[in-house]
C-alpha cells in the first residue's frame, strides 16, 4: 500500500516536472494546453465561488439592513433634524427675501411719489366683522392722524379713522362707510367710489354723458381726502344706467388685494412738502 502510493507519487511528480518543463520550454503551446485543462476546473470552482459570493452579499446586506440599523437609525434621525432645520432656515430666508423685495419696492415707490409718506406694517384686522378695517403699527407719535390716506404700490387702500400713540385703524375703501372722490382716468369724469359687500367698490354720481367703458382705470381725484391725485383705485368691471336717473354708476374692482395687505404707506401730506408760511417783509415791519 505504502509502496504503491510512493510509486504513484513519483509518477505524478514526474508528470508535473514534465509539464513544468514543457511550459518553460514551449510557453505558447503550453498556454493552450493549460487553458484546455483549466476551463473545466474553473467551471467547477466557479460554483462554490458563486455560492460563497452570494452568501457574502446576503450576509453583508443582512448586516447593513438589520444588524447595523441602529447606527443608520441614529444617522437617519440626525439627517432628519438637519433637514428640518434647513427647511426652517430656507423658509425664513424666503420670507426675508420676500419682505426685502416688498420693502424695496415700497421704498422705491416712496421715493417716486411727491407726497410725504410714512411706511407702516399691518398688524391686525378689524376686531369686529362689521367693518373692513386693518390695524397699523404706526400712530400719532409717527405723525399719523385721522383722515390721512393709506396707499400701497398697487393703489389706494383706505383712510385712517382712529389713531393712538403707536397704532392706528384704517377703514378700507371696500367698506360701505368709506367714500373716495375719484375720476375715470381716460374720460376724466368724476365720481365717488364707495365700498360694497363682497370686497368690491362702486363708483357713483358719474355724469350721464360719460363715455366710460369696461376696463377703464379709476384713480383718485385728489380733491378731498388724504390721497394725492392719480393714485389707482381700481378698474371698471360693469356699468349701470338707471332709467330716468341723473347719473350713471359703475362697479369697480379694486387694484389692491386686501386679503394680502402687509406693508402700506400712510400719506401724511398728499400734495408734496408743505412749507411753513413765510411772513412778508412789510408785514414783519408792521407793529
Amino acid at each position, binding site marked *: 500500500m505504502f509502496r504503491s502510493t510512493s510509486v504513484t507519487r513519483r509518477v505524478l511528480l514526474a508528470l508535473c516536472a514534465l509539464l513544468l518543463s514543457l511550459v518553460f520550454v514551449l510557453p505558447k503551446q503550453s498556454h493552450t494546453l493549460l487553458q484546455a485543462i483549466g476551463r473545466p476546473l474553473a467551471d467547477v470552482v466557479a460554483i462554490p465561488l458563486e455560492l460563497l459570493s452570494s452568501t457574502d452579499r446576503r450576509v453583508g446586506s443582512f448586516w447593513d439592513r438589520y444588524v447595523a440599523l441602529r447606527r443608520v437609525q441614529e444617522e437617519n434621525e440626525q439627517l432628519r433634524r438637519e433637514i428640518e432645520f434647513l427647511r426652517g432656515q430656507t423658509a425664513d430666508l424666503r420670507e426675508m427675501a420676500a419682505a426685502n423685495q416688498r420693502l424695496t419696492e415700497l421704498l422705491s415707490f416712496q421715493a417716486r411719489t411727491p407726497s410725504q409718506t410714512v411706511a407702516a406694517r399691518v*398688524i*391686525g*384686522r*378689524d*376686531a*369686529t*366683522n*362689521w*367693518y*373692513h*378695517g386693518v*390695524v397699523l403699527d404706526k400712530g400719532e407719535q409717527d405723525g399719523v392722524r385721522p383722515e390721512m390716506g393709506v396707499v400701497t404700490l398697487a393703489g389706494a387702500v383706505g383712510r385712517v*379713522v*382712529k389713531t*393712538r400713540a403707536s397704532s392706528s*385703524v*384704517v*377703514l378700507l375703501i371696500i*367698506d*360701505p*362707510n368709506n367714500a373716495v372722490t375719484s375720476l375715470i382716468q381716460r374720460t376724466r369724469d368724476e365720481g365717488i367710489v*364707495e*365700498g*360694497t*359687500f*363682497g*370686497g368690491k367698490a362702486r363708483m357713483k354720481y358719474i355724469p350721464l354723458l360719460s363715455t366710460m367703458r369696461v376696463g377703464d382705470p379709476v384713480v383718485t381725484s385728489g380733491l378731498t381726502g388724504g390721497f394725492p391725485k392719480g393714485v389707482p383705485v381700481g378698474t371698471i368691471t360693469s356699468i349701470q344706467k338707471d332709467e330716468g336717473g341723473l347719473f350713471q354708476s359703475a362697479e369697480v374692482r379694486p387694484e389692491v388685494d386686501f386679503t394680502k395687505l402687509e406693508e402700506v404707506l400712510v400719506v401724511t401730506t398728499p400734495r408734496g412738502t408743505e412749507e411753513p408760511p413765510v411772513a412778508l417783509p412789510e408785514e414783519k415791519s408792521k407793529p
Partner: protein
Amino acid sequence: MRHMVYLALALGLVPVQSTVLDHLSIAGVRPDLCLVAVSLIGFFGGMADGMLMGALLGFEQDLFSAGEAWVSVITKAVIGLSGGLVARYVAHVTPVTVAPMMVGLSLCSGMAFLFAGAGGPDAMTAVQAILAPQALLDGVVGVAAFWVLAERFKKDDSLV
C-alpha cells in the same frame, strides 16, 4: 384663579380676534370670541363679572375697530349681564338651551351695530352677509365653549 383667567382674557382675546381668527374665517365672517367669552363669564361668574368684563372687552374691541367707540362697550356689557341673568333664572341650562341664547345675543349685538350704521346703506345685505352667519358661528362656538367649561366645572368648582 378667576382673576387670572379674566386678566388673560382681557389681554389676549382681542389680539386673537384681530389676528389669528382671520385665518379661520368662513366667507369673511369670524365668530365673535369676545361675545362668546362675555356671555359665558356672565353665565359662570355672575351678572357683575359679566357686565364689567363685557365693558372692558367691548372697549378693547372698539379700540381695534373702525367703528364707533361705544357700540361694542354697550353691547358686550349688556350681553355679560344677560348671561348672568340666564344663569340665575333658567333652571336647567344645557348646551341645547345655550345655543339659542348665544344666537339671540349675537343677533341683538348685530342689530346694535346695524343701528350704528356699520352695515352701510344696504342693511338687508348686511343681515345676510354678516349678521346671520355670525350669529350661527357664535352659537356653535358658544355651545362648544359652554360644554367644555361645564364639564370642567363639574370636576372642580373652585374655578368658579
